[in-house]
């Protein structure tokens, strides 16, 4: 007699019945979005109109007020992916996986912005749009790792397998970040050494730290807002997949 397998749970494991997904962003998300817009507008004004130009680089150094907070926000996003992936592998709870995949997408966005703004700054400063310097190359590798992660997730046929392989890739890929941060100290590179997160404190003038700090705060607020919205999308998609599966089972 033919043996039949009975599907007793949704593909991503035995989860409690999901809570209804909200139609609109939560009040927290709306406050975060509004605060991000306000803080970033302030940072833009301070960075472009208030602080004086750099004594050596001139006006073009103002690109750093966007470039530096952008990569630090990307590091934060990938740190969230790293932690959520570890938690997923430990607990096998797909809510952690939803956080990981959502944060990875936003991290890729901020890494892309970092690469683009760095390249635009490099042309007038170094005379080239791109060079295979250790810091630049490792940032491009970081971008590629997490684009690969998103592709792996998008093309996985089994949601659980995709989540599991993705988590492993995200954890291994995160090793690129300390390597990237230390690259300017370990190798002689064209990219300047760290001027903020360095032993002995920041080496830049304190007036220049103000727009950097404001924009970093603004981008972190924006990241959190985008993360909450992206997680909401993930929940809607998973609820749809679950309902479709239930209907399929009922025939």
């Amino acid at each position, binding site marked *: 007699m033919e043996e039949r397998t009975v599907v007793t749970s949704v593909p991503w494991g035995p989860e409690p019945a999901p809570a209804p997904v909200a139609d609109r962003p939560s009040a927290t998300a709306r406050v975060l979005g509004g605060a991000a817009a306000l803080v970033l507008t302030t940072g833009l004004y301070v960075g472009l109109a208030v602080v004086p130009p750099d004594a050596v680089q001139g006006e*073009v150094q103002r*690109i750093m007020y966007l470039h530096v907070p952008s990569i630090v926000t990307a590091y934060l996003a990938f740190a969230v992916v790293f932690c959520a992936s570890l938690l997923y592998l430990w607990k096998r709870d797909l809510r952690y996986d939803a956080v990981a995949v959502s944060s990875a997408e936003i991290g890729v966005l901020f890494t892309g912005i970092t690469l*683009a*703004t760095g390249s*635009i700054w490099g042309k007038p400063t170094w005379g080239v749009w791109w060079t295979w310097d250790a810091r630049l190359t490792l940032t491009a590798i970081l971008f590629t790792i997490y684009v690969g992660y998103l592709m792996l997730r998008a093309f996985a046929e089994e949601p659980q397998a995709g989540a599991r392989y993705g988590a492993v890739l995200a954890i291994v890929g995160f090793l690129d970040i300390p390597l990237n941060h230390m690259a300017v100290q370990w190798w002689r590179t064209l990219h300047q050494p760290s001027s903020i997160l360095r032993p002995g404190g920041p080496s830049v003038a304190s007036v220049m730290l103000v727009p950097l700090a404001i924009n970093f705060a603004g981008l972190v607020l924006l990241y959190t807002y985008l993360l909450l919205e992206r997680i909401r999308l993930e929940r*809607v998609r998973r609820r*749809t997949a679950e309902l479709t599966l239930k*209907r399929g089972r009922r025939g």
Partner: protein
Amino acid sequence: MGNWGFIGLAYGLAALALVGYLVLLKGRLRSARDELEALERDGGRRKA
């Protein structure tokens, strides 16, 4: 291109990327919600 041209390009591209992502995300959310609502409506009709 002068210094301010490069600054404008960098900030403009970043703004385009961030606003573009936000608009796309809202669009994806809307269509995912529409799909879910259609499924739920269909399920409700079947039960009735």
